[in-house]
C-alpha cells in the first residue's frame, strides 16, 4: 500500500479585491502518495496555481485567503502551522518552481549565492565549504558547469535559469515538489530536456511532484495521477490510464482532448470548447461548466453535480449516476 504524503480536503480559497471576491478554488480534494507525480490540468485561471500556493501558504498577503478546508503533509495540518513553522517547511519539505524562469531569480545576486541561500537556511550547521560543495553538486546534477555559479541571472538563457531554479528547489531533497508550468516559458526543444531532467531527478530523489500544466502531452509522459480543474473545482480525477484510456469522462475533459490535434485519426478540424471560462467572481449556479456543456440538462443549471466514483476515477457530473 502506498503511503499518503499530501492530503487536501475541501479546500476553498478566495481573493479579495477592491471590487469583489474571486472564488479561485472551490472544495478541492486531492491526495498524493510518496514519490508519485500528479498532473494538475486546466485552463489559465482554473485555480491550479492558487492550489499550489495554498499548499505553500504563500497566497498574496491580505488578498488571498483560505476560507475552509484542510491540507495535511504526512498527516500533520499545514493550515494550522505558524509562519515560523512554515518557513522551515518551505524549501525543505515542499519546494516550488515557478512558471517564468526569467523573473524567478533575483537579478542582483549571483546564481550560486541564490542556490546557496536555501542550503544555508535549512542546514544552518553547514560551514561555507560544505555549502559550496553542495552548490557544485547541485549544478552538476542539473547539468550546469559549477564554475558558472559566480555569474548573474542575466548571463543565462531561459532554459539554464530554469535549471538553476530546479537546483534551488531540489537543494534540500524535498518530499514534495510543486512545479507550476515549469516549461511553458521555454522553447519546445528545451522544454523536453528540462522535463526529462525533472523526471529523472524526482525518481532519483524519490520526490513526489504536482505538475501544473495545460499540456496533456506532458501529462501523459510524466504523470501517475491526473486531476482536471475547471473554475476552481476538480471535475475529474484518476490515474493516467483512467484519463487517457477510460470510457467515462466529464464533458469538459472530452472537450479538452478534442482541442488537441491528433496525428493518428484524421479529423478535418479541431473541436475547441465553445465559450469562455466563467468569471470566478460570478460563478454560474449548479454545475460550473453548464453554460458551455453540450449535454447540459435542467438539473445542471440548478444543482451542483455529485461526485461519481468509478474505481480509481472520480467525475463531478450529473451525466453519471
Amino acid at each position, binding site marked *: 500500500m502506498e503511503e499518503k504524503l499530501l492530503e487536501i480536503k475541501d479546500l476553498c480559497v478566495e*481573493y479579495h*479585491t*477592491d471590487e469583489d471576491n*474571486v472564488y*479561485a478554488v472551490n472544495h478541492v480534494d486531492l491526495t498524493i502518495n510518496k514519490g508519485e507525480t500528479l498532473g494538475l490540468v486546466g485552463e*489559465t*485561471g482554473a*485555480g491550479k*496555481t*492558487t492550489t499550489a*500556493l495554498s499548499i505553500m501558504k504563500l497566497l*498574496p498577503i491580505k*488578498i*488571498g485567503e483560505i476560507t475552509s478546508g484542510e491540507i495535511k503533509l504526512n498527516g500533520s495540518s499545514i493550515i494550522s502551522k505558524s509562519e515560523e513553522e512554515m518557513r522551515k517547511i518551505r524549501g525543505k519539505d515542499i519546494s516550488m518552481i515557478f512558471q517564468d524562469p526569467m523573473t524567478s531569480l533575483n537579478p542582483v545576486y549571483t546564481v550560486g549565492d541564490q542556490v546557496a541561500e536555501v542550503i544555508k537556511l535549512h542546514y544552518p550547521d553547514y560551514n561555507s565549504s560544505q555549502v559550496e560543495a553542495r552548490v557544485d553538486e547541485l549544478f552538476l546534477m542539473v547539468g550546469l558547469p559549477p564554475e558558472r555559479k559566480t555569474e548573474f541571472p542575466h548571463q543565462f538563457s531561459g532554459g539554464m535559469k530554469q535549471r538553476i531554479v530546479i537546483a534551488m528547489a531540489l537543494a534540500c531533497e524535498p518530499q514534495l515538489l510543486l512545479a507550476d508550468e515549469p516549461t511553458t516559458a521555454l522553447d519546445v526543444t528545451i522544454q523536453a530536456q528540462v522535463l526529462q531532467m525533472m523526471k529523472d531527478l524526482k525518481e532519483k530523489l524519490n520526490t513526489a511532484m504536482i505538475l501544473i500544466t495545460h499540456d496533456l502531452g506532458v501529462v501523459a509522459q510524466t504523470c501517475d495521477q491526473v486531476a482536471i480543474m475547471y473554475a476552481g473545482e476538480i471535475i475529474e480525477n484518476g490515474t493516467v490510464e483512467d484519463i487517457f484510456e477510460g470510457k467515462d469522462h466529464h464533458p469538459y475533459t472530452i472537450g479538452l482532448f478534442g482541442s488537441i490535434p491528433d496525428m493518428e485519426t484524421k479529423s478535418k478540424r479541431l473541436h475547441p470548447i465553445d465559450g469562455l471560462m466563467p468569471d470566478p467572481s460570478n460563478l454560474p449556479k449548479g454545475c460550473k461548466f453548464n453554460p458551455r456543456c453540450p449535454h447540459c440538462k435542467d438539473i445542471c443549471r440548478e444543482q451542483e453535480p455529485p461526485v461519481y466514483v468509478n474505481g480509481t476515477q472520480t467525475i463531478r457530473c450529473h451525466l453519471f449516476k
Partner: protein
Amino acid sequence: MSVGTGTQAAAAPMQKYKKRSQIAQIWGRFKKNKMAMGGLILFGIMLIVAITAPLFIDYEVDVIQQTISERFQSPSAAHWFGTDQFGRDIFSRVFWGARISMFVGVVVVVISLIIGSILGAASGFFGGWLDNVIMRFMDILLAIPGTMLAITIVAALGGGIQNLLLALSIEQIPKMTRIVRSSVLTLKTQDYIEAARACGTTNARIIYRHILPNAIGPILVQASLTVARTIISVASMSFIGLGINPPEPEWGAMLSEAKAQLMNYPYLVVAPGLAIILTVTSLTLIGDGLRDALDPKMKN
C-alpha cells in the same frame, strides 16, 4: 500571481477598444479614487474662486488700497485672515492671488505643452538629425541645474508677468518635449500606426489623429504636475523679488512682505502659504489619480 495575471489578461483586450471608451475607462477608474476626486473638486473650487473673484472683490479698494489706520489687525469678522502692514484685507488679497497663480500656471502649461508637443512629436516621429538637434538642445537646457536658468532670464529681463511666463515656459519645455517624444517613440512601433501608414495616411495626420490622442495620458499627468510646480516656482521667484512685484497680491510676493514682519506679526505667513499648499496638493492629487487610472496594474 494568479490575481495579477488575471487583471493583466483582462486589461489586454480593453486596449483594443476605441479612443473614446478608453478615456471613459480612465475617467471611470479616476472617479473611484476618492483622493483624486477630492483633489479635482478642490481644484475646481479654487478655479471658480479665481475666475469669479472680481464679482466679490474690488481690486482697487479691497486688494491694493492702503488704509494705514487698519494695519496689522488680527483675524476678525471683518477681516477673516486679518490685515497686513498697509491695512489691506489679507482674505481679499489671497483670493485675488489665486487669479495670478492659476493664470501663470495654466499659461505656462499651455505654452510648454504646445511647443513641447510639436518638438517632441517631431523629434520622436521623424528621428534622425532632427531628433538629434532638438534633443541635444533640450539636454543643454536641462543641464542647467535647479532654477538657475529661469532666475537668470528673469533677473536679466526684469520682473513682471510676461518675463516670468517666458522664463518658466523655457524651463518646462524640455521636460514636456522629452515626455511627448518617449510616448511617440513607444507608440510609433505599434501595429495600428503601421496600419495607418500602410493605408497611405500622411505623417501629419498620423501624428495628429493616431499618436497624440494615445500619448495624451502621460501628457495630462505631466501637465497637472507642471501647473503645480509652476505655482510653486512663481511664488518662489516672487518671494525673492524676481517675479510678480508688489502691490500685486501674488502669494509669494505677499510672503516676501510678510517676511519683514516675521518678528512681530507671524500670522501674516499663514494664509498665503495655505493657499499655495491647497492648490498644489489638489493638483498633485489629480496627477497621482490620473497616473493610477492610466496604469491600473500599479495599484494593489
